[in-house]
Every structure is written in C-alpha cells, then in structure tokens.
C-alpha cells in the first residue's frame, strides 16, 4: 500500500517512501516530499499495512527503481481512510450538533467550488481554492484539538490525502 506525497498529494507506491525525504528527493520523481509528513503518512502506513515484501523494503530502505506500484490497492486506500475519518467526525461528541451542521455546510460549499473547478470554470483555480481548504481544515482542527485530540491528529495527518481527493475529479466523484 502506498502513501501520499506531502507536497503534490500524489499517490506513491510502497517502495517510494524509502527515498522520499526532503534531504534526498526521490529519483525520477516530481520533487521532494516533506520528510516528516511522508514518514507520518506514507511510510508509517506502509509498515503497518503493506505486504511482507513491502515491509522488508521499508525496513531496509531499499527501493526497486522502475517497479510499478500496484495501482488498485494504492487508489482505494486513502478513500477508505477518509470514509472512516468522516464517520468519526460525525460521531465525535467534541462538536455540537449545530456546529457539525455548520461545518457540513462549509464542506459542501467547498466541494461545490471544486466541482466547479473540475467542470472547467475559471475561477476558481487550485491556487485560490487552497487557502479556503486550509482555513476550513484549521476550523475543524481548532474545534477538535482540545476534546478529541486523536481525531484532530488523524485529520491533520490526512490533510494531503483529503486535498488529493478534492483535486482529482474521479476520486471526488467516487467520494461524494
């Protein structure tokens, strides 16, 4: 199972994590990932959820250049995580009912803007949508961090996965 690049949000194969650090950009890749985030999201998951071969490669830090990542597994994994997070957000007692509804309204508004973007309309551009996304995530985190810190941490760790879904037309259609 792959992780998510901290910068571009692109799905990576399990073997990519080993070399995807800020200090040492991945060869043949599209730039360096944030080292801490890559370890927190991609590599940590790979160790826990990958097969024996993937785990072995993660431990040794060796990557097989040119080997394609299993696309079906990599594509479905983040969506599952996000579904779980969505359900946990619905279930948490840290946020009141009205606040949840208000947040849902704002999430729906933002998703609507992304759908407008995917329909080809400009504005909005992704550069314009990113601050709205960051602000909304900050609102969610500030509401959760005191009373449900674990969920706040997991949502924060999934920041790039969520962005990855929003910016991918097909994934967004599957998710919403």
């Amino acid at each position, binding site marked *: 199972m792959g992780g998510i690049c901290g910068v571009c949000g692109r799905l990576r194969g399990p073997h990519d994590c080993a070399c995807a650090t800020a200090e040492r950009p991945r060869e043949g890749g599209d730039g360096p990932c944030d080292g801490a985030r890559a370890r927190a999201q991609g590599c940590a998951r790979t160790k826990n959820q990958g097969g024996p071969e993937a785990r072995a490669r993660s431990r040794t830090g060796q990557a097989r250049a040119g080997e394609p990542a299993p696309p079906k597994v990599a594509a479905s994994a983040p969506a599952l995580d996000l579904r779980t997070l969505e359900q946990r957000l619905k279930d948490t007692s840290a*946020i*009141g*009912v*009205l*606040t949840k*509804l*208000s947040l849902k*309204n*704002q999430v729906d508004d933002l998703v609507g803007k992304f759908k407008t973007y995917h329909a080809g309309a400009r504005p909005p551009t992704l550069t314009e949508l990113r601050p709205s996304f960051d602000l909304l995530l900050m609102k969610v985190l500030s509401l959760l961090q005191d009373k449900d810190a674990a969920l706040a941490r997991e949502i924060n760790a999934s920041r790039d996965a969520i962005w990855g879904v929003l910016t991918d037309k097909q994934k967004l259609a599957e998710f919403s």
Partner: protein
Amino acid sequence: MKRLALAACLAAAVAFAADDPKQKEDLAAVIALQGKPCGEVVSYTVQGANDFVATCKDGNKYRVHVKDGRVVVEKQ
C-alpha cells in the same frame, strides 16, 4: 387571571431562557465559524426547534437557526 397564566405559559413555550453549557459552546462555535464576533455566549433563549437567540459576552446578539439544512447566523 387564568387567561394571564395561560398567556404566560404560551410565551414561555415560544421562547425560554436556557442554560446548558454545551449548547452555549455549540452556539459560540457556530457564530465563530461564520466569522462573526462573539467570544463567548453568556446566555441564550430557545425560539423553537433549532432556533436560538444567543447573547455574547461582548454584547452582540445573534439569531442562530436552521433553514433548508443550513445554519444561519443573523445579527439582531
């Protein structure tokens, strides 16, 4: 006298002051989410189902209600 008592009961049923700390926090969070100044909700009255008037510490008053599935915050 009976009419007066009945009127008082009806008025109390339409809008009554409540003091649930969780509800106050919920209202304060909703007002903040809409980017409106409040700080802390010190009191609120219930106007109906999902319909409140919240009084903030800074003196602002907001009607918070749900309309067509959306939470609406209106300054009073």
